[in-house]
């Protein structure tokens, strides 16, 4: 008991004025703005796919991009909530990425069905996964850096969602840059690696988000 009283006195002495953290919605908007800015720079350097104006008239391509953007928004919001010990008492909102991923899977299923006869896949394969990963490195570093300033009590979940958020930035870039129409290629080499990324994120969360 005496030790606890001593500790309380010591903590109170260290208790200088502090500014409460921003609301997680503001935080996630900040992250999305950074992601948009980063994507703008990436497109300035790489350019867009040459058939983009035509592709933007295809329903399933636009739906795929919208679903990817939905994943970026939902994972950013969820990661922001997961940075708070109590998830800012918005636990259900933190689960929204599950919905957006389900919606994304549905869109990809319809896009795959619409790709008939199937478009031949390009000659390259894993290069796409590597390109997305490379582009996602900076957003991942940024998001983990910001999250470390908070106090997550869900390391695995937070790490996984944060890395998926960063990966979705890379996925949006590659879909708008690479001239590929093969849905099977896109599923295999752009989106299925997200499962491995989610698992890697769990491990990273455990290591990086300790406090």
């Amino acid at each position, binding site marked *: 008991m005496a030790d606890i009283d001593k500790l309380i006195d010591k903590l*109170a002495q260290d208790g200088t004025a502090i500014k*409460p953290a921003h609301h997680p919605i503001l935080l996630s908007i900040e992250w999305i703005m950074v992601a948009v800015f980063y994507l703008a720079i990436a497109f300035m350097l790489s350019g867009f796919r040459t058939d983009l104006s035509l592709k933007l008239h295809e329903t399933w391509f636009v739906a795929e991009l919208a679903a990817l953007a939905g994943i970026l928004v939902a994972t950013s919001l969820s990661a922001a909530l997961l940075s708070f010990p109590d998830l800012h008492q918005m636990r259900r909102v933190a689960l929204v990425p599950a919905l957006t991923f389900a919606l994304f899977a549905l869109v990809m299923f319809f896009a795959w069905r619409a790709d008939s006869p199937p478009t031949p896949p390009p000659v390259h394969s894993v290069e796409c996964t590597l390109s997305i990963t490379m582009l996602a490195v900076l957003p991942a570093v940024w998001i983990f850096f910001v999250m470390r300033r908070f106090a997550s009590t869900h390391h695995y979940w937070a790490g996984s969602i944060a890395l998926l958020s960063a990966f979705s930035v890379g996925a949006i870039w590659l879909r708008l840059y690479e001239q590929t129409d093969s849905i099977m290629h896109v599923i295999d080499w752009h989106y299925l690696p997200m499962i491995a990324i989610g698992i890697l994120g769990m491990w990273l969360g455990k290591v990086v988000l300790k406090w």
Partner: protein
Amino acid sequence: MTDNSDNFAALMKQAQAGDQRAYTELLQETSRLLRPFLAKRLSFTNEVDDLLQEILISIHKARHTYDGNRPYKPWVYAIARFRLQDHLRAHYSDQLHHADDLSEIEETLQSDVTESAISYESISGEVEKLPEKQATILRMMHQEGYTAREVAEKIGMNESAVKVAAHRAYKVLRKKLEE
């Protein structure tokens, strides 16, 4: 209940503004709030105190993540549960790590008892010098032949706490017998 929660939130707001007196009061109230929560889940008073200290430090580190616009208790319990899980995880992994050790010590002790070099009386005397709870556990396990589970049921502790207490007692006894 609401008044109490409002009071916590108000104290935290004052603390965040740099009011050290309000912060002291908040931490004292929080400590009173969390003690029964931890005591229900842990067997030893010293464990409760250690963990409570850790939780208070965590609250201090994370106080910027509370904005005063939402209830205080869910926020503080989220931190307390998180630290409790950490503590239990470490505790059980430690137990698993020492599981082989434990059976080894038990075997050594049992074989020592049958050897003439160490008399039963000498061990029994040392057992009586142990803290009351540890002595009772060892008596029941080694003189009366109860299993750890049975001892736990009889004295109203959980089984793992009985094993931990026995383990600590074995360590003390081994030291004494090695002297």
